[in-house]
């Protein structure tokens, strides 16, 4: 493709690239920038976590409050991810397979949680369910606790992770069209059978990709959860909140030990995400190929 070349001082190089020196300088600048901003903070987490040695590290993680935080984080993700998975499938089915008025507005609304500050995502639930909130007096009269309790944390997490699965599935299902489903219907399959045997296998890798990102955010969410949690130890503290509490108590080794678990989760997420992109890139939407 780039066989057009200019003779510059005897040496021949393709016209669509730079001299070797320029290339090396640009690569070096990019790598130094990324090393400074990405790799160094990640390395700092593990370095600080193991500063007190392996024994100190294990002791910090086996702390009852830390274990309670880990359990709560797993519980919240185990509710938020399936909920948003079902939502993502329903939204993608409606948006990608049908033409209706107001569709672009619906797609914008689905993306809305990504453009709202996480603190505001938590605040809206406090204004709705909190003691001074719109439904607060009614909830109190019926003895239902949402804010400063687990339901509030789950709701805030669902809010911030709502778009992940839907925004992976919608572009992919739009690219795929409805030809396969129409063929299955014409051969006599029922609606649910078409969905489970035709549509779902067509989008399974994109679905997994969306759930992976949803899970990473659900387990790591801080701002929204911090507002609704009330920071009650071993009751309403997720892992990121536990990190904050330990750090503010100057218990740095323990804070970084819990943080290193979350950093490990982030690395596993990145590896799985890259594997999906490299092996099944053709089965992800154009937006999900990066």
């Amino acid at each position, binding site marked *: 493709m780039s066989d057009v070349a200019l003779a510059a001082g005897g040496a021949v190089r393709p016209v669509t690239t730079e001299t070797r020196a320029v290339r090396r300088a640009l690569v070096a600048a990019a790598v130094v920038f990324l090393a400074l901003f990405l790799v160094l*903070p*990640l390395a700092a987490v593990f370095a600080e976590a193991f500063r007190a040695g392996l024994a100190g590290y294990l002791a910090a993680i086996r702390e009852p409050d830390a274990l309670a935080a880990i359990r709560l984080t797993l519980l919240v993700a185990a509710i938020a991810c399936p909920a948003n998975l079902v939502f993502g499938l329903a939204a993608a*089915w409606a948006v990608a397979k049908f033409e209706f008025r107001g569709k672009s507005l619906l797609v914008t609304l689905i993306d809305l949680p990504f453009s709202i500050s996480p603190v505001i995502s938590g605040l809206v639930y406090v*204004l709705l369910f909190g003691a001074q909130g719109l439904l607060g007096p009614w909830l109190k009269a019926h003895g239902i606790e949402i804010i400063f309790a687990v339901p509030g944390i789950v709701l805030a997490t669902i809010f911030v992770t709502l778009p992940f699965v839907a925004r992976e599935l919608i572009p992919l299902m739009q690219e795929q069209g409805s030809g396969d489903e129409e063929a299955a219907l014409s051969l006599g399959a029922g609606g649910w059978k078409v969905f489970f045997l035709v549509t779902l296998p067509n989008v399974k890798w994109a679905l997994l990709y969306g759930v992976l990102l949803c899970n990473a955010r659900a387990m*790591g969410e801080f*701002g929204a959860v911090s507002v609704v949690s009330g920071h009650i130890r071993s009751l309403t503290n997720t892992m990121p909140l536990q990190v904050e509490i330990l750090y503010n108590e100057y218990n740095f080794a323990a804070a970084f030990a819990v943080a290193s678990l979350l950093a490990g989760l982030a690395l596993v997420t990145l590896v799985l995400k890259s594997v999906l992109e490299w092996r099944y890139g053709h089965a992800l939407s*154009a937006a999900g190929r990066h």
Partner: protein
Amino acid sequence: MTSALGLPLRRPSVLPGFGLALGFTLVYLGLVVLVPLAALVLKTAGLGWAGFWALATDPRTLSALRLSFGTALAAAAINLVFGLLVAWVLVRYDFPGRRLVDAMIDLPFALPTAVAGIALASLYAPNGPIGALAAMAGLRIAFTPLGIVVALTFVSLPFVVRTIQPVLEEIDRELEEAAATLGAGRLATLRRVILPTLVPAMLTGFALALARAVGEYGSVIFIAGNIPYVSEIAPLLIVIRLEEFHYQAATALACDMLAVSFALLLAINLVQAWSRGRFGHV
């Protein structure tokens, strides 16, 4: 199914499940996102215009908003320059570890913000490795607005790279060859052939980075020092007002920030519509 205007509400389709899928989508979206946001709007409306204006223009609020915007703009600008560089290097040059670097770009999306926050604070604090170096140069990074810029640069780093990358991959090398055969030098080609095609993606990436940075909370609060009027960002002030049970002030500030988020969202959509019309891609 036709509406009052005679326009079809939806085009007929042989596929089943439209009612169920759309119904579930709307109910879920309504309960999780729209009703809570409506509560925010209702609470703000309850303040009355005078009450809202007094709270929204409170000096501490304005100072927090100015800081959030100033630092977010600075971080988005840094990421515009380095994001372009990183995207260019990743798409155009082959070097050892290129795929690893490519995969690492998404780290700020995957790493919980609180973890990023304490890691950056420990690096940039005066007794941390980078903070100590900066201190020798007479520069304080942590507990100043500069520290906030560092944290915001970290969290918004992937946006510019990830919006420019696909557009750069699509650019036809033949355009550059044509420019070269017509006598353009390499720099002229870059500036007058490649850069203009990248402008929409750069603007979109910049706006996305800015939107994320303005609302960011977790990674900032550890490194900022949180001194009122100096290094107190708007999302933190919302949390402080809530902890003081001053719900009205929190609501008014949240409304200010929501208005800004919507303006940015609109700007992104306009840029993308313009780009689709002009270049046929986003």
